[in-house]
């Protein structure tokens, strides 16, 4: 397979150039971009618009998990003086362990992930029913829908900032040493957890898309919505399922990133949007497998670039990739929807 071959060649090249450490970092970070990119690309394929609020979905998930997982939840309103704090739900129930096995985080953070998934998916479904579906039924164009999701993005971030304030937050953690994998590769253990979890979720998504009735109806609707309708597929239901899947992946991505970077803030997801969109475009808009491969390439390119240029510019690498793809191969590596 071409993909495997290019992967092995590029990995070999990274050893020659002595950037294998950054390569592996980028690969693992890329998997978490993939969680976001797959969601955006599926939404584009089925709901037919670029979901700009996806990054803020990720942020929101981290803040949803926050009061579940953290031992001291400080609520600091932007406009009120009477701030207060309380004990998070799981620590209240006696679960306050940190530093699980080789990792920095503990069980409460992990347990909060499914809760964040469920809550974020519900929010996504409500937004679909009360905003996007209404706009579609009114005949709004896909540009209008994308712009309205931009509005939703700002709204969600505003809500997060109003409740939790703008300062950095973090899940309970203790520092752990890097894991030496040999061959000059050492990674933080959390990054390995992040990569494995993300790959596991991508695999589940693949299974859903290929082998379940829900996934097949999603692919059918993406192929030909009119035919799907006359075949008896309830397109609105398919769209809801897509939102649920995309929101669950985004929730997990948001929390994984927060764990890995040891902190999060309201702008976190918004900043992730650039590499994620670059991954979507690189793989071919509307193609879930393209999004996965695109995300890995973007992740690797961004990390490896820090060997040669100031790390502050690594977001620019994502931008450059996106621009080059649009100029040279606008349908992306694996070919997307028109």
């Amino acid at each position, binding site marked *: 397979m071409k993909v495997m071959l290019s992967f092995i060649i590029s990995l070999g090249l990274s050893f020659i150039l002595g950037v294998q450490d950054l390569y592996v970092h980028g690969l693992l970070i890329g998997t978490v971009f993939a969680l976001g990119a797959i969601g955006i690309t599926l939404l584009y394929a089925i709901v037919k618009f670029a979901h700009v609020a996806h990054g803020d979905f990720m942020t929101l998930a981290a803040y949803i998990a926050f009061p579940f997982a953290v031992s001291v939840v400080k609520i600091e309103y932007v406009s009120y003086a009477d701030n207060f704090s309380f004990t998070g739900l799981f620590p209240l129930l006696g679960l306050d362990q940190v530093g699980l096995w080789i990792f920095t985080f503990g069980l409460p953070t992990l347990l909060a992930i499914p809760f964040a998934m469920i809550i974020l998916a519900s929010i996504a479904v409500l937004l679909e029913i009360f905003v996007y579906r209404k706009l579609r039924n009114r005949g709004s164009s896909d540009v209008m829908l994308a712009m309205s999701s931009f509005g939703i993005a700002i709204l969600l971030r505003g809500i997060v900032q109003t409740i939790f304030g703008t300062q950095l937050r973090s899940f309970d953690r203790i520092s752990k040493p890097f894991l030496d994998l040999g061959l000059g590769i050492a990674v933080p253990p959390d990054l390995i957890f992040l990569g494995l979890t993300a790959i596991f979720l991508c695999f589940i998504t693949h299974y859903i898309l290929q082998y379940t*009735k829900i996934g*097949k*109806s999603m*692919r*059918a609707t*993406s*192929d*030909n919505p*009119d*035919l*799907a*309708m*006359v*075949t*008896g*597929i*309830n397109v609105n239901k398919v769209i809801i399922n897509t939102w649920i899947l995309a929101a669950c992946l985004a929730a997990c991505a948001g929390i994984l990133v927060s764990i890995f970077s040891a902190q999060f803030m309201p702008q976190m997801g918004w900043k992730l949007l650039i590499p994620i969109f670059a991954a979507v475009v690189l793989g071919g808009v509307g193609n879930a497998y393209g999004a996965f491969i695109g995300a890995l390439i973007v992740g690797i390119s961004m990390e490896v670039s820090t060997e040669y240029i100031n790390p502050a510019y690594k977001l620019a690498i994502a931008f450059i990739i996106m621009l080059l793809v649009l100029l040279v191969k606008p349908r992306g590596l694996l070919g997307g929807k028109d």
Partner: protein
Amino acid sequence: MQKKNKILEVNNIFSGYGETEILHGVSIEIYENEIVTIIGPNGCGKSTLMKTIFGLIRATSGNIDFLINDELTSINNYDTENLIKKGLSYVPQSDNVFPSLSIEENLEMGSFIKEEGMSESIESMYDLFPILKEKRKDPANQLSGGQRQMLALARAMMLKPKLIILDEPSAGLAPNLVSSVFETILTIQKAGVSVLIVEQNAKAALERSNRGYVLATGENKVDGTGKNLLKNKEIASLYLGRK
């Protein structure tokens, strides 16, 4: 010809898009195991008629009755899913397969609303169209034009409908494929299904139809057996391009 059961009766329907009324009182009937063709010039309301029968557009007045549990029942207010359940199936004119899904998955989509008996249905479709079995794992976009029509028809057959509505099955096909598509339609009829065809290619369709209707400006103009319509001089000059 022995008397057969009527399975669809469209009685004096009026329908259209929004303010624009396109059908001004059209009536047709279809009996069991019959191929019926509707012909007429562009814009006469053929497609509107199909969409109205299939519930994609609502009739503003008139009745559409369909044989449900051996009784003609009004289906005016049925939604698509319900109509499919009751044994009506529709094949759009173009884009009538899911291109990136495999042939087998396309057939699975045909029985999306009722999964029981799916694998038997798929097997019987493979018996009917062996070429589809050969390519079962291939995506549908690798099929030729004629094979696509075959797949589209097979998908529509998955839930063993009583009536299949075909919108211009020969549109966009090379002339030598047209007859193979009509062969497929005859195969379907032999399997005990009635077929309602809307066609531009009037001659090919009428030759193989039991009966036909000619629509003009949203109203019935002529009807009769397929062979009689072909002989009719007026129709020949108007719609078949013969003097």
